[in-house]
């Protein structure tokens, strides 16, 4: 059983510098063909000041820093037993190449199903850019299979 006292705790902040090359790599990895995600000139022609980050890219900020994995380990979770169950984003603004994104994550809830065979951890995050503007909120639900 995961100690329920972790509910409400904050995980260490993650900071991601959004580089154009990383965005192009991400776009290629997902097979993106829309030039606004691949070509700076096309992005600018579409009205963006630089390459935009695709909708799920900012999830990478916390992944890079290993925040989520370390947070789970700190809760005593065997990360080999963890599956990503749900993911949600609420958008408040675009993320563009050159931005510095800070992600702050908190444990929103921990609950179990099937008499504890499955435990769910709900992690809520807020992503802000270098101007302090919130660009997105994220909710990750992970399941630990016992």
């Amino acid at each position, binding site marked *: 059983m995961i100690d329920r006292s972790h509910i409400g705790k904050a995980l260490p902040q993650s900071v991601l510098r959004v580089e154009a090359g*990383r965005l192009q*790599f*991400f776009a*290629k*990895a*997902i*097979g*993106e063909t*829309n030039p606004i995600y691949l070509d700076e000139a096309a992005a600018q022609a*579409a009205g963006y000041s630089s390459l*935009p980050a*695709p*909708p*799920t890219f900012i*999830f*990478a*900020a916390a*992944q*890079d820093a290993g925040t989520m994995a370390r947070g789970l380990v700190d809760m005593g979770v065997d*990360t*080999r037993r963890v*599956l*990503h*169950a*749900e*993911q*949600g*984003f*609420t*958008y408040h603004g*675009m993320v563009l190449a050159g931005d510095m994104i800070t992600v702050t994550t908190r444990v929103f809830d921990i609950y179990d199903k099937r008499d504890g065979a499955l435990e769910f951890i709900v992690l809520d995050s807020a992503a802000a850019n270098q101007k302090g503007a919130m660009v997105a909120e994220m*909710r990750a639900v992970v399941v630990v299979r016992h």
Partner: protein
Amino acid sequence: MNGGTQTIAAGDELPPLALPPLSRTTCALFAGASGDHNPIHIDIDAAKAAGLPDVIGHGMLSMAMLGRLLTGWMPQAHLRSFTVRFQEPTLIGDAVTCAGRVLERTEAGQEVLIRVEISAVDQQGKIKTVGEATAALTIENENETP
């Protein structure tokens, strides 16, 4: 988008996105691009040690593909929320098709809110990932969207 978004109505289908069979190369590239280096997506030995027959696709890769479906339909700046549930892992060789359908169109003053259901389904019709997204437009910019 053909004819602008003024004509978007409940029941409309999003242009589907048929993906090539999932390859280990795509999993490896996505691991690097997304920052999720969990070896069950990259290393067949680690996948087998975890009881899997082979590496599996990242849930977030599936979500990124659904993101392509959404941004291929509607400029990303209009996206307000995007939520999915990962039901089944995508296996090597799975040919996934992403599809979506407008559930609801609501107008409040100048704002138009569109809610869509989305899914990623494999070649056998098995649902891998399912979710919802919302997009917001104003009556004014409805005709401007490409």
